[in-house]
């Protein structure tokens, strides 16, 4: 019978704390960059010109249909060779995760925009608004309300996906846990703790989504 013992973990509290900070930091960067990529690709897929539309569709399909772990490794090892540039592990990981998240964000943004009734656009056109004004004043405000819950959902995935950056030796929560396990040979308690830490961060986020979903229905 395994003897659970969590007490030793207290010794490593600063390691876990920095790990959590890195995880949150990478999450913020990957969400911000991912939303930017997603907005560009989402709007780009709705563009009138195929020159804009097709590359965006290509990007989305490429990143949706390959595993993000493979993308991170590829960005770190293969891309620098291909382009002849230096790439830090953090740069490679953040770029890969952001592009991966962006592909999913773009589908949410595109879907949100096309879900708005065409009558809304017509009424705005009839008032004399330009394309840009229609997007900003009529379509986006309505689409944003519908998009917020799925965008938050995807952002939760983004946070969880940052657990993969340890593969290129970035000191996130998982990486610190691995370090602790190497020293203590106690993986069960260590991974239980970090699982609970992820849970503690994400539980409030999921309940927020539930509240927003209820509001978006009305």
């Amino acid at each position, binding site marked *: 019978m395994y003897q659970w013992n969590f007490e030793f973990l207290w010794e490593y509290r600063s390691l876990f704390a920095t790990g959590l900070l890195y995880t949150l930091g990478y999450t913020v960067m990957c969400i911000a960059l991912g939303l930017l990529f997603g907005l560009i690709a989402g709007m780009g897929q709705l563009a009138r010109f195929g020159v804009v539309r097709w590359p965006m569709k290509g990007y989305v399909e490429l990143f949706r249909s390959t595993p993000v772990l493979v993308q991170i490794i590829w960005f770190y090892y293969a891309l620098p060779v291909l382009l002849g540039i230096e790439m830090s592990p953090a740069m490679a990981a953040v770029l890969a995760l952001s592009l991966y998240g962006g592909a999913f964000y773009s589908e949410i943004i595109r879907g949100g925009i096309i879900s708005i*009734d065409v*009558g*809304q656009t*017509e*009424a*705005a*056109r*009839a*008032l*004399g*608004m*330009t*394309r840009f*004004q229609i997007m900003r*004043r*009529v379509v986006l*405000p*309505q689409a944003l*309300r519908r998009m917020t819950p799925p965008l938050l959902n995807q952002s939760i995935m983004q946070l969880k996906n940052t657990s993969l950056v340890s593969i290129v030796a970035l000191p996130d929560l998982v990486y610190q846990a691995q370090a602790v396990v190497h020293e203590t040979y106690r993986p069960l308690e260590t991974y239980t703790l970090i699982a609970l830490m992820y849970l503690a961060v994400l539980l409030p986020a999921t309940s927020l989504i539930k509240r927003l979903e209820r509001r978006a229905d009305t």
Partner: protein
Amino acid sequence: MIEIQGLRKQFGDNVVLRDVSMQVAKGQVVALVGPSGSGKSTLLRCINLLTIPDAGSIRVGEHAFSFQGTATRLPGDRVLARFRANTGMVFQHFNLFPHMSALQNVMEGMVTVLHTPRKEARERALQLLAKVGLVDKADAQPQQLSGGQKQRVAIARALAMQPQVMLFDEATSALDPELVGEVLAVIQSLARDGMTMVIVTHEIAFAREVADVLVFMRDGVVVESGPAKDVIDHPQQAATQAFLARFHDQS
């Protein structure tokens, strides 16, 4: 005020308008009547270029455009927007902006397109809501309003742009019968004020009362047009007589 010459439009193989010409004088009310699929809504939507015709020319006030098939270079987004600001349009399904109150719906065009200062836009919007009898609903959200109230807000929203022409696209077709009257009353009061209007409608009795001119369309052509009372009471063409037969039976 409006001059339409040789207008043609087809969607795929379906020719919706074949060589339609029409004129509307300032202050005139024109009713566009005809069976569904006759092209009357398309004609109306061509007047503010929500639908771009394939050929022909359109003049509204001092703005004129002409179209020659695929060779035509379409006017730019800004030119079209400025042109559309001169006409007000009311839709069958209201198309109010659901994320704005009634008052904000009416203010939106003034603030965004005309750049009217907010305070002034607000005052004017309240006046217009009073005109359509809804000043007490200024702060209501569209989903709290009945169909008839929504349509009256939509009329106020269009009027806020101080358009030279008002276009009504089956404005009462989506309403419950008991709500039709309140919307027609507003349109009638606009006619009394001398507003130039083109109205696509199925309400023959209303057209007879309010319209100066009735244009009867079928299969993309104008079959008959003339003073509304004359055309309705004494239709000359067989197609017009057949279409109006049901109305005459009822009255």
